[in-house]
């Protein structure tokens, strides 16, 4: 009835929703999941941001399971990992990197305390032999057991753990922690056969469908140094091994350690704890060039280990050592100066690196060897079908974290091989870089500091040096994560859209763009704290 309309009104009043302003758009916002730098840097391949997301809500069990998907030793690596994730962390450019390693340790300890277990799949009927119970072997055993395979681990030592037990001192890794995480793997059905060195892979392989070799690098390198009959020389690997097995090595009060790696630091710090009054590390280059991790060097110095950089040992006798001073040439290589000096020393510990005993693959000509290690493909495959290898015996960075990554990678490959399938590689993701973040939204928050053991107790006992976080500090630290490149539902896009065109979905479902009304202004992209939205051109 037209007559009922007010004066001068000819059209029915309606909502502006009839006006589809999305037609104005030339670009549209798209939610993305990028690769956070922590994940990118982790040798064990952990999706760190993903498990921190759960830790942020205090859901520690889900967070722990997130770690376990890649790393079965969180309490161990939470203590001994050199934290490439933290070096890569974008927050490091803002204030300080997130204490990822502390949170990992907290979650690992929580897993032990709560007795969380990992379910295993239906038995596959396949049997896999793992040679070596170090980090690579344990990692592979865990993942293979999880996937339903029967796993036997053979190891030469009396107890499993490899270099984590026989090379890393207790003050960095308490044995009850190592034992607890290994026990969890045994509880999954993995059979450990200790004191059973594998000397011939061909013979050992009988009865197994696949073999993973991870024998590590156990042989201390020697260097030719003229030494008199009375000189007391031993290698760092043997020293650390003896301490672990309860044999007290006779070191004397003046100990010189020759080398500049983490093992040299471990040896010097162990010597200090065994009563050496003034252990000295002799290294031929400078501190900046030392392969030892910065924190190891710092802690060693704190504990009273002295350093002699740019020095080589040229002679050892019953009274001490003769040291030659070095200088760096233009290419940074140390050159002898001809200047000599005497240092008193009761014992010289050689920490010059380690070699692998590869005699166990002597009967396998198709396993390629080069530079003292076994060559492997990207899936840790050797030239021999069904035989895989990882850890320190293959070319790689020699850390426990790298080894754990090798174990996981090998397990995926072995599983696929046993099932006659190919490994399905996850799609590659673009890296979430710092310049994609809008850091204005993040509160300034300093990193939570882990407590350290009193110095006087550090130098006199093998008690663990670093304390852990508690539930509240772990939560705080987890929430420092910037969630680089991955939406964490902060509602910013939903709030800042001038056209109400961002739709908020159910919790956990994130958001959607209402393309009927999105004009493509890009404010949501510019204001997303974590860079999880990007603009893409509209197809014309």
């Amino acid at each position, binding site marked *: 009835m037209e007559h009922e309309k007010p004066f001068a*009104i000819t*059209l*029915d*009043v*309606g*909502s*502006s*929703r*009839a*006006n*589809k*302003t999305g037609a*104005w758009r030339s670009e549209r916002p798209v939610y993305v999941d990028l690769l956070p730098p922590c994940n990118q840097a982790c040798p064990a391949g952990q999706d760190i941001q993903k498990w921190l997301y759960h830790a*942020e*809500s205090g859901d520690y069990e889900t967070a722990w399971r997130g770690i376990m998907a890649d790393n079965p030793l969180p309490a161990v690596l939470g203590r001994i990992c050199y934290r490439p994730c933290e070096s890569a962390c974008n927050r490091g450019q803002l204030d300080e990197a997130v204490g990822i390693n502390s949170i990992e340790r907290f979650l690992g300890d929580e897993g032990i305390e709560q007795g969380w277990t990992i379910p295993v799949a239906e038995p596959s009927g396949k049997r896999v032999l793992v040679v070596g119970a170090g980090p690579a072997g344990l990692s592979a055993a865990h993942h293979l057991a999880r996937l339903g395979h029967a796993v036997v681990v053979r190891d030469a030592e009396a107890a499993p753990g490899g270099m984590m037990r026989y090379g890393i001192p207790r003050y960095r890794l308490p044995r009850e922690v190592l034992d607890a995480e290994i026990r969890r793997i045994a509880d999954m059905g993995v059979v450990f056969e200790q004191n059973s060195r594998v000397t011939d892979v061909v013979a050992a392989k009988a009865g197994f469908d696949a073999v993973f070799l991870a024998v590590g690098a156990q042989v201390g390198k020697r260097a030719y140094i003229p030494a008199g009959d009375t000189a007391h020389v031993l290698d760092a690997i043997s020293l650390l091994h003896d301490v672990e097995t309860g044999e007290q090595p006779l070191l004397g009060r003046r100990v010189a350690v020759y080398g500049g790696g983490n093992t040299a630091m471990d040896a010097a710090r162990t010597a200090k704890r065994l009563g050496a009054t003034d252990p000295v590390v002799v290294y031929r280059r400078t501190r900046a060039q030392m392969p030892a991790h910065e924190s190891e060097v710092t802690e060693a110095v704190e504990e009273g280990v002295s350093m002699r950089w740019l020095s080589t040992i040229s002679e050892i006798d019953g009274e001490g050592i003769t040291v030659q001073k070095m200088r760096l040439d233009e290419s940074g290589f140390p050159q002898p100066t001809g200047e000599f000096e005497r240092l008193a020393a009761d014992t010289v510990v050689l920490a010059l690196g380690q070699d692998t005993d590869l005699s166990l693959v002597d009967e396998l000509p198709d396993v390629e060897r080069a530079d003292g290690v076994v060559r492997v493909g990207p899936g840790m495959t050797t030239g021999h079908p069904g035989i895989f290898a990882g850890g320190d015996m293959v070319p790689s960075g020699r850390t426990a974290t790298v080894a754990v990554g090798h174990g996981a990678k090998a397990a995926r490959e072995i599983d696929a091989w046993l099932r006659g399938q190919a490994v399905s590689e996850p799609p590659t993701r673009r890296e979430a870089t710092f310049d994609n973040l809008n850091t*204005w*939204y*993040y*509160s*300034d*928050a300093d990193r939570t500091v882990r407590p350290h053991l009193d110095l006087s107790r550090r130098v006199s006992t093998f008690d663990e040096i670093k304390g852990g976080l508690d539930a509240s500090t772990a939560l*705080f630290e987890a*929430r*420092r*994560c910037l*969630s680089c490149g991955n939406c*964490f*539902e*902060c*509602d*910013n896009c*939903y*709030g*800042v859209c*001038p*056209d*109400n*065109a961002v739709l*908020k979905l159910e*919790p*956990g479902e994130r958001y959607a763009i*209402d393309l*009927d*009304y999105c*004009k*493509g*202004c*890009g*404010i949501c*992209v*510019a*204001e997303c*704290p974590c860079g999880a939205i990007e*603009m893409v051109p509209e197809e014309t």
Partner: protein
Amino acid sequence: MAVTPIKFYQTGSFAVGGRLLGDDQRSVQSGRQRINSIDCGHRACQGCGEALGARYALDAAMRATGNRMVAVNATGCLEVFSTPYPETSWRIPWLHSLFGNAPAVATGVAAALKAKGRTDVRVVGQGGDGGTVDIGFACLSGMFERNDDVLYICYDNEAYMNTGVQRSGATPPAARTATTPAVGAEPGAVFGQGKNVPMIALAHEIPYVATATVADLRDLEAKVTRAMEFRGARYLHVLVPCPLGWGSASHDTIRIARLAKESGIFPVFEAEHGEIVATSKIRHRVPVEDYLRRQTRYAHLFGDPPRTDVIEKIQALADRNIRRFALLEEA
């Protein structure tokens, strides 16, 4: 060393919301049930700061009044882009009369409600800087002077944007507009002219005066909420960047408002009964140049040679604000 309280969740309280926030910590805008006072399909430009500022302020006012509220609107962008006949974007009771009389109309609505005994229904007047600072200023001053029970919100985009970017009494010095072109020895708007309405409102000693920007949602919502706790005349001045008039990228609207605050050129404060009671401190101080460079209305300052003398004069204004309103944290 001063202890900085850390407000978590994760991004602090600076993000709109967060999945871990309790209901008491939520912003109005983070709620799925927010009113959306101004609905989709409005014809504001891409990245319009005013559309955003109006939704922020009115949604917060709606929550503060339990959805019992009437909004009165001056002529200007906000009115034009939201109500082209026969569409409306308003999902709240909304009145429009003329360019210059929004404060008077709001006063009238408040008086009518009072006469009917409906003191539960509250009134919000709103307009751009043209309708507020210049054309409606007499009505606004009268509203203040009589202490009428109205919250008046000015969405300041620093010129007459609706009619083609002409200078207003809120246009800052050196800015180029259609009527203050970038020519001559002193290009752009003249130094020393214009009106500072928040300070004029303060001088009326009304119950509540505050400034805010679209870059700090929680601050804006808190101020609207606080304003509704008072009876009598209240004034809120919100900086809303205009991509079209300022010549800024549409995605930079919030960033530019943030730079205005962080440089000190737009002081954010709160006053009750003629006294300043709080200022929003600068978190990461930036030079005004960072703010100016993102806008083509200042492009003539960055030509060859650059007008460093003019930039310095603008920096001096920001520095004066920082001193005058104590915008930096005490060391």
